[in-house]
């Protein structure tokens, strides 16, 4: 069975380490905040200028001056800091954020990512994604392995305009967890019940499969 959005998010959260500062993009990445293992602490960075993002407020505590990068009302966690956009991107660009998780249209075997623009369709903008992929060492991409027509989005070379070059190290899809090393995708884990053959058939890029590939485990 391919993973649900929640299961992808749950698998993402297993990559967090105690003490990590983490930036979560809109969509599936945001859901990962719900699955942070109980025995570790992470601090969420929101690029509009909040380090230490807390949960959504109660109705009574909604504050127009307290939003996240998705423009949703949020709270500040204990020990949070609030700052300007320049400061926020200084910490992103300067490599101080430990983990960035974001979605993508395509990734390729050289770690390139396309996530913001489909030519011919209206371009809404890259927001902070280009800065985030240029700044973090540990970037996890969450995406569907193939589009609804079954065409792979895990490619030899991205076809869409890029968000960043040679920057992606980990990809978690509805079918697999892969790392990108030396110009190839390295299959690390399979979604429960998904065969290596199925993953291979839906991976257009170079895929390395070393030995038996374990299934993902969820607590």
């Amino acid at each position, binding site marked *: 069975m391919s993973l649900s959005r929640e299961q992808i998010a749950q698998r993402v959260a297993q990559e967090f380490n105690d003490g990590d500062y983490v930036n979560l993009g809109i969509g599936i990445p945001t859901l990962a905040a719900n699955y942070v293992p109980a025995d570790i602490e992470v601090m969420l960075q929101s690029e509009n200028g909040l380090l230490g993002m807390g949960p959504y407020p109660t109705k009574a505590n909604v504050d127009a001056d307290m939003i996240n990068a998705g423009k949703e009302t949020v709270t500040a966690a204990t020990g949070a800091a609030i700052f300007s956009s*320049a400061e926020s991107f200084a910490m992103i660009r300067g490599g101080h954020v430990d983990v960035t998780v974001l979605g993508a249209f395509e990734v390729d075997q050289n770690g390139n990512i396309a996530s913001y623009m489909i030519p011919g369709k209206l371009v809404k903008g890259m*927001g902070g994604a280009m800065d985030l992929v240029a700044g973090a060492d540990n970037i996890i991409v969450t995406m569907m392995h193939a589009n609804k027509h079954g065409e792979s989005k895990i490619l030899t070379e991205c076809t869409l305009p890029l968000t*960043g070059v040679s920057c992606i190290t980990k990809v978690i899809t509805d079918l697999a967890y892969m790392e990108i090393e030396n110009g190839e995708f390295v299959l690390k884990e399979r979604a429960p019940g998904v065969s290596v053959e199925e993953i291979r058939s839906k991976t257009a890029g170079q895929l390395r499969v070393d030995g038996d590939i374990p299934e993902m485990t969820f607590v």
Partner: protein
Amino acid sequence: MAGFDKVVSSYQEAMAGLEDNMTVIAGGFGLCGIPEGLIAEIKNKGTKGLTVVSNNCGIDGFGLGILLEDKQIKKMVSSYVGENALFEKQLLNGELEVELTPQGTLAEKMRAGGAGIPAFYTATGYGTPVGEGKESREFNGRQYILEESITGEFAIVKAWKADRYGNCIYRHTAQNFNPMAATAGKITVVEAEEIVEPGELSPTDIQTPGIYVDRVILGQFEKRIEKITTSD
């Protein structure tokens, strides 16, 4: 105005001198921390051909979005413009130009502009459409592109509290682009929720020193929320 007292009493005074084809740098992120009354004054004035530099362009009918209604904006410099149907229409009709700029690069362009730095190198956008046609250079084995900074004839800023001298503090994430915008305008206008006497704000707490600010006006804010998300 006497001495360092920068308080003006009308929006007309606040935006006096704004003319067609000028560049206006605006603070705010989405609808959070936007100078609502100053934007409304630009609409009332009917100034046209504006280049507006702001992370977003508001939404239909609110924020910077209202300046689209009478086609006052010629060019928008933003990182994300996805919440606005009128914007899409004018863009597709060729009535509006947009320069999509990565969010961090946009913040740094304002910061650098206000700090007298004409350009800077950043890895953001290298190898992407943003880097096309820009000078690139290698530092320590990595490629960077040269991005030029931004200044404008006007900057419009939303503060929580300002004193009469223009010293400002911001509230929560309504800070966002406001401090950088404040530095990058030849004329910087602050619209504040509260105006206090000099000395009432602790010097240690000031986030924008008054030297950057030319005019201060007391505003009234609707503070519309784009996405209300709650836990209950």
